[in-house]
């Protein structure tokens, strides 16, 4: 299975990288190629599916299938991943050298790139909404570390956090939508849901929630602001995440859930509007940017706007066209990102204004990236021509307004792609280019070559897109893409696009002021500002809550005791109390028990008068030990044993912690300030009274839920156990135990981190 190879690649590269930093890249690339081959072979041999119910009682299934949609995105993730890894094997050492960082830092880079690739392949193949959510969040986590790879740079960290928050918070909406669908239709499985859902408000709401998650991941308006910020990442990361993988995951979700989404006209209209807006905003802003990667980032926003529009337009052309578009765009855009990285590496400049005329010193790169740019601008003889042909065909199906919109969007693409390529390689400039390694050029040429190949032999590309489109439509799609030398509308639209594009390029002085104003307006009043305000507000709220609750130990205890006491007290007041509070009889057999409880009471009273912390700790633990004895009286040896042991460890920890605090501080804190005393006594009294009432009520009536305990006891021999407690812990309620021990490990991690001043080493 390709997924297994893909998921294994990350740990393998990390292991090799730990042995020898230089070994991570080749091993990672080899695994990448292997995963690519496995996907190709798996798809060619008819796909495959795994369906394991791993928690049947919750209807959670490990349902993976290598269908057309999965094959398209898995091939992109592994194929472009391979090119990017080859590129980074040369780029990353240079990048680390610029920043005086050791070569071994690169290992984590390869680990997260491959982790991303693995989760992307998983996401592509997942057929279960919960599984989709899991892989979705895995990609978000990997992207966080990749975007924040230059972790010494605060700007880079803020960008990584922004990408994580925007895609992570919206991922929760995906989960909510999934649960809504589950509540209504009783399954998380996407193929089953596709057969069961009916158009209606429920589908619209759930579909909207899920679509928002997808749109945020694909950086569509109004969530687009994270993508240009994410350009803080090293260039190979941008080339991978922001052309073929992370942003593609968003439209993958739309494509995967398309059988559901297309049943609601409202959802399709939302997609149309959001996609068109992104197309326009991204395109115009791309024309205003000077920094290479910023230009490409906005162009990605605009390009995925196309894809979303195509899903919104719907129909055969829409679904197949969207898949074809994603494929061609990933090839072209990653090539352009990589050439931006190479140019910056060679000249030291990352701005259009400092570059120009580089075709003389870097002819091979100019050709490779030129072909990719031509593909993006949809010139004939490249695969890009067909992506626009399908786009125009889909728009024509819906009417002339959409056709006009499509031509305008494509013309914007033409203009900014020309600006990017022409600005770097044509014209004159005093930019000096150092000799660059062939490894930094070859991946660009290879990706450009694939674009050119698709322009001549479109068959395999279209076949993949057809398979993916049929999965989205749940019906066999039949769309033809070919050159026609006649005056059909698609060809006329393409010609209009070229003309309009040239006009936009030539009339730059006329509109640059207006575009700049739009860009400034976006910075002033755009969603990025809203995000910043929200983040600051939440931070402030959390700080205030922290200050109120955790100012000192006493107020923290009070913050738990008082609300707890009041809530429990309110609960007692509204509950009918007939026969709840009974005083039982004392029999002769109970006297040893009562005698044992006397020291507990004495110890408890003593704690309220003790001033010294050490005495307090010892008195508390003595109460605990006597309570353990009480358990023994009740014939619960397991509980008694655990109580004794826990009490011993607690006492040791108490004493050890007290030793950590300087003596004077401890002494000063021992006395309670007199003015605060009445308040604290009141807190303690409320909490104590309600606890007393609750315990009394519990003890007054024999536990009604005997059935569970009896069931456990009955089944203990079946589990080959003599001791019911152990059998419950390890077998019947094993999942609870698993959760509890995870908490224990987490606490250990927290203790170690705190004691070592926030570091683990």
């Amino acid at each position, binding site marked *: 299975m390709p997924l297994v190879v893909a998921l294994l690649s990350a740990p393998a590269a990390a292991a090799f990288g730990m042995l020898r930093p230089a070994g991570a890249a080749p091993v990672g690339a080899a695994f990448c190629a292997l995963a690519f081959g496995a996907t190709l072979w798996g798809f060619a041999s008819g796909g495959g599916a795994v369906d394991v119910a791993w928690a049947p009682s919750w209807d959670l299934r490990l349902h993976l299938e290598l269908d057309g949609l999965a094959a398209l995105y898995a091939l992109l993730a592994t194929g472009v991943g391979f090119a990017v890894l080859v590129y980074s094997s040369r780029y990353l050492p240079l990048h680390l050298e610029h920043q005086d960082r050791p070569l071994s830092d690169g290992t984590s880079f390869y680990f997260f790139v491959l982790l991303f690739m693995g989760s992307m392949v998983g996401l592509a193949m997942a057929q279960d909404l919960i599984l989709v959510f899991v892989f979705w969040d895995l990609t978000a986590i990997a992207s966080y570390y990749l975007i924040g790879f230059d972790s010494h740079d605060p700007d880079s960290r803020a960008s990584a956090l922004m990408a994580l928050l925007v895609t992570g918070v919206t991922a929760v909406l995906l989960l909510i939508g999934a649960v809504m669908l589950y509540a209504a239709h009783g399954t998380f499985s996407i193929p089953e849901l596709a057969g069961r859902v009916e158009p209606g408000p429920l589908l619209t709401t759930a579909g909207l929630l899920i679509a928002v998650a997808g749109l945020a991941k694909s950086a569509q308006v109004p969530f687009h602001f994270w993508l240009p910020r994410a350009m803080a990442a090293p260039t190979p990361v941008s080339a991978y995440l922001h052309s073929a993988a992370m942003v593609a995951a968003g439209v993958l979700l739309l494509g995967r859930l398309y059988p559901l989404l297309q049943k609601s006209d409202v959802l399709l209209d939302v997609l149309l509007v959001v996609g068109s807006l992104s197309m326009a905003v991204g395109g115009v802003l791309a024309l205003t940017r000077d920094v290479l990667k910023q230009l490409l980032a906005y162009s990605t926003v605009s390009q995925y706007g196309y894809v979303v529009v195509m899903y919104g337009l719907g129909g055969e052309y829409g679904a197949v066209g969207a898949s074809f578009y994603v494929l061609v765009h990933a090839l072209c855009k990653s090539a352009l990102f990589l050439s931006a990285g190479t140019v910056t590496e060679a000249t030291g400049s990352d701005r259009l204004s400092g570059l120009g005329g580089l075709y003389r010193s870097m002819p091979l790169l100019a050709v490779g990236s030129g072909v990719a740019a031509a593909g993006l601008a949809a010139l004939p003889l490249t695969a890009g021509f067909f992506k626009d042909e399908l786009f125009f065909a889909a728009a024509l199906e819906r009417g002339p307004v959409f056709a006009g919109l499509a031509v305008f969007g494509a013309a914007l693409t033409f203009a900014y792609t020309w600006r990017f390529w022409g600005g770097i390689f044509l014209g004159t400039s005093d930019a000096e280019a150092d000799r660059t390694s062939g490894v930094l050029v070859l991946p660009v040429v290879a990706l450009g070559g694939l674009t050119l190949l698709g322009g001549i032999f479109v068959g395999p590309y279209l076949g993949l897109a057809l398979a993916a489109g049929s999965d989205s439509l749940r019906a066999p799609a039949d769309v033809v893409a070919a050159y026609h030398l006649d005056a059909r509308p698609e060809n006329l639209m393409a010609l209009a696009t070229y003309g309009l594009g040239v006009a936009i390029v030539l009339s730059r002085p006329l509109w640059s002021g207006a575009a700049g104003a739009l860009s400034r307006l976006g910075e002033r009043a755009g969603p990025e500002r809203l995000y910043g305000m929200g983040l600051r507000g939440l931070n402030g709220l959390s700080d205030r809550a922290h200050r109120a609750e955790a100012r000192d130990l006493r107020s923290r205890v009070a913050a738990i005791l008082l609300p707890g006491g009041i809530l429990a007290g309110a609960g007692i007041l509204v509950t009918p109390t007939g026969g709840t509070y009974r005083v039982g009889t004392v029999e002769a057999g109970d006297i040893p028990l009562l005698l044992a409880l006397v020291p507990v009471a004495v110890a408890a009273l003593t704690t309220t008068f003790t001033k010294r912390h050490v005495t307090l700790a010892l008195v508390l633990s003595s109460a605990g030990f006597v309570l353990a004895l009480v358990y023994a009286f009740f014939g619960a040896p397991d509980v008694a*044993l655990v109580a004794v042991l826990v009490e011993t460890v607690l006492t*040791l920890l108490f004493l050890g912690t007290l*030793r950590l605090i300087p003596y004077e501080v401890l002494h000063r804190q021992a006395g309670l300030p007199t003015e605060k005393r009445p308040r604290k006594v009141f807190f303690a009294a409320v909490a104590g009274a309600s606890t007393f009432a609750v315990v009394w009520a519990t003890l007054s009536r024999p536990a009604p839920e005997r059935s569970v305990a009896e069931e456990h006891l009955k089944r203990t021999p079946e589990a080959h156990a003599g001791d019911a407690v152990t059998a419950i812990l390890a077998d019947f309620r094993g999942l609870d135990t*698993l959760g509890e021990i995870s908490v224990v490990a987490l606490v250990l991690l927290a203790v170690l981190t705190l004691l070592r001043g926030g570091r683990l080493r």
Partner: protein
Amino acid sequence: MTSAMTRMVARLLLLPTLITAVAILVKGYTQPGDGFSAGVVASLGVLLQLMVFGREEAEKIPGVRQAGTLAFVGLLAALGLAVWPLLLGDAVLTHYPPPGAKVLHFGTLEFITAVLFDCAIFVLVFGFVVGTVGAISRAIEDADEQEAP
């Protein structure tokens, strides 16, 4: 410095404590006691050494220095034991052999996967207690060093 008597008792107590811990663990499925209790008993034995001989000496006992890591090894083992029935097509946390099947005995020790799960809990609890107290004692030493350079 501790007295000679304390040191001798502490040294003599280590092995019996560990044996008791293993006994609690092994017979856990038939008699009172489980991985948790066993882990605490074992760590108490080690902690006695730590208090009497100091951290340097105690860390010569195998597994004490790496106690923190050990806790996560235990967690991973428990997770692995919980998940691997999936490979056989069963639900998470299925234990083998299934109810009604014959079980191999060695004394009171039963060869069932639930006992392995218990062992993982043992490792985790041991790692947690020794790791936490070890970290605290290291912090105390660091603080003392800073006071008297």
